[in-house]
């Protein structure tokens, strides 16, 4: 039960290609292999996305995605046993173009041995002001079921609702910008059924013991994101992006990134640096003073105060150009490889593997390599 937040993915897949509503997305197929390796966790698998127009007004899209997970993360090593798991996700969507309006529907299903998720999304995009502005309104409904692999009787619901508004604006002949607001409400079983919190226990040899975590059963978050991409005087582009996030658990974050895109002959190189900093949830503690010390308690490092840094390098090679080739119905093709180097510093999450006395444990740090390679065919 590692990767469970699907709602925004459903929105992304529903909206992908619709920044400008008056045009349907291109017909294309992507064949992707992904690998995440870091912190004792290895996740890899394929992702296949197929998009095809039907007539002049409808575009259909389907995606099949697999995560094969092998986990001996710090959470698993300190409180449980390493495990392997597989998550399979598929989605189907359709875009309908009428004048300057595009309506999109999408359905995403994700299945794991202990977690099922279904997400339904709908969006409307409208071109305005001579196609300089595109306004997009979106709604997504998530219906999840949480289980435990060691307890067949355990089953909890989690409902999600996602509201999103986005504006894409052409500002000058060299500059395009985007502004997004997103509200996500969740109600139900929000904590991880396997994870534990640590509390001081003088009766234990280590000086502490563990008990199951307990989260609030509601969470509402708001995010505003903005970005702009500028075409440089020579053929290259830069993009800046910023996001502010806040939620009812008192997690507040700032995320920023800067990208540079440089084409050279049939190659396109992209470099990106991303920075993210967040505060911890109000019920998070690395060490509680006693058992059941507070009404809600959590020790998930993802909801603790942290700072993450990512360096990304990407290269794409267009090996088939759209200038008359003999590949039949395929007009254009490219292969893209990317490597993200992710580093996370946790401000309040101790590395218990050191077995140091309470208070002198080192803080945990995570390093992960994220690799993608994908082939894209346009037809």
């Amino acid at each position: 039960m590692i990767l469970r937040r699907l709602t925004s993915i459903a929105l992304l897949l529903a909206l992908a290609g619709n920044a400008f509503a008056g045009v349907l997305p291109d017909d294309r197929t992507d064949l992707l292999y992904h690998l995440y390796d870091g912190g004792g966790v290895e996740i890899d698998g394929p992702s296949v996305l197929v998009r095809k127009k039907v007539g002049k007004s409808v575009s259909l899209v389907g995606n099949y995605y697999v995560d094969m997970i092998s986990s001996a993360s710090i959470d698993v090593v300190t409180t449980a046993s390493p495990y392997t798991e597989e998550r399979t996700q598929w989605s189907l969507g359709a875009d309908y173009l009428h004048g300057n309006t595009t309506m999109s529907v999408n359905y995403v299903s994700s299945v794991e041995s202990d977690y099922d998720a279904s997400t339904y999304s709908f969006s409307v995009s409208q071109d305005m002001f001579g196609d300089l502005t595109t306004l997009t309104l979106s709604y997504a409904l998530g219906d999840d079921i949480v289980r435990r692999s060691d307890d067949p009787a355990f089953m909890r619901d989690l409902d999600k609702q996602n509201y999103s508004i986005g504006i894409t604006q052409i500002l000058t002949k060299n500059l395009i910008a985007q502004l997004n607001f997103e509200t996500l409400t969740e109600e139900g079983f929000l904590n991880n059924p396997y994870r534990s919190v640590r509390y001081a226990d003088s009766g234990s040899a280590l000086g502490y013991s563990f008990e199951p975590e307990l989260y609030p059963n509601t969470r509402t978050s708001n995010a505003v994101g903005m970005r702009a991409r500028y075409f440089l005087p020579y053929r290259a582009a830069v993009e800046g992006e910023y996001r502010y996030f806040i939620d009812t658990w008192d997690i507040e974050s700032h995320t920023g990134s800067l990208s540079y895109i440089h084409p050279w002959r049939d190659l396109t190189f992209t470099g990106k640096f991303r920075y993210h900093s967040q505060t911890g949830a109000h019920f998070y503690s690395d060490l509680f003073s006693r058992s059941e010390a507070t009404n809600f308690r959590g020790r998930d490092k993802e909801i603790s105060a942290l700072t993450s840094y990512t360096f990304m390098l990407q290269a794409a090679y267009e090996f088939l150009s759209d200038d008359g080739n003999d590949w039949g119905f395929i007009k254009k093709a490219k292969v893209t490889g990317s490597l993200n180097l992710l580093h996370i510093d946790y401000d309040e999450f101790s590395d218990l593997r050191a077995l140091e006395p309470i208070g002198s444990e080192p803080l945990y740090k995570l390093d992960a390599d994220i690799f993608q390679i994908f082939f894209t065919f346009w037809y």
Partner: protein
Amino acid sequence: MNKRSTGRICLTLFVLLGLSACGPIEPWVKPYERDRLADPIMALDGDAVSVSYIQHVYEAREGARGGEGGAGGGCGCN
């Protein structure tokens, strides 16, 4: 930012949408001036399959989510 402020933003955007039908606004970037914006290097999310994957990784490793948009690339001017 709460639900009320999100509602105000929605209302403003709907009013803008309505105003757009009242009269033509002269586009300050003409269609024939959008060749640079139509360049693939200007696509905001050119490869949805890759962008959704990496967003997924961040949402699993960090406490924040959303606000990054799902709108995809190009400028609709080709």
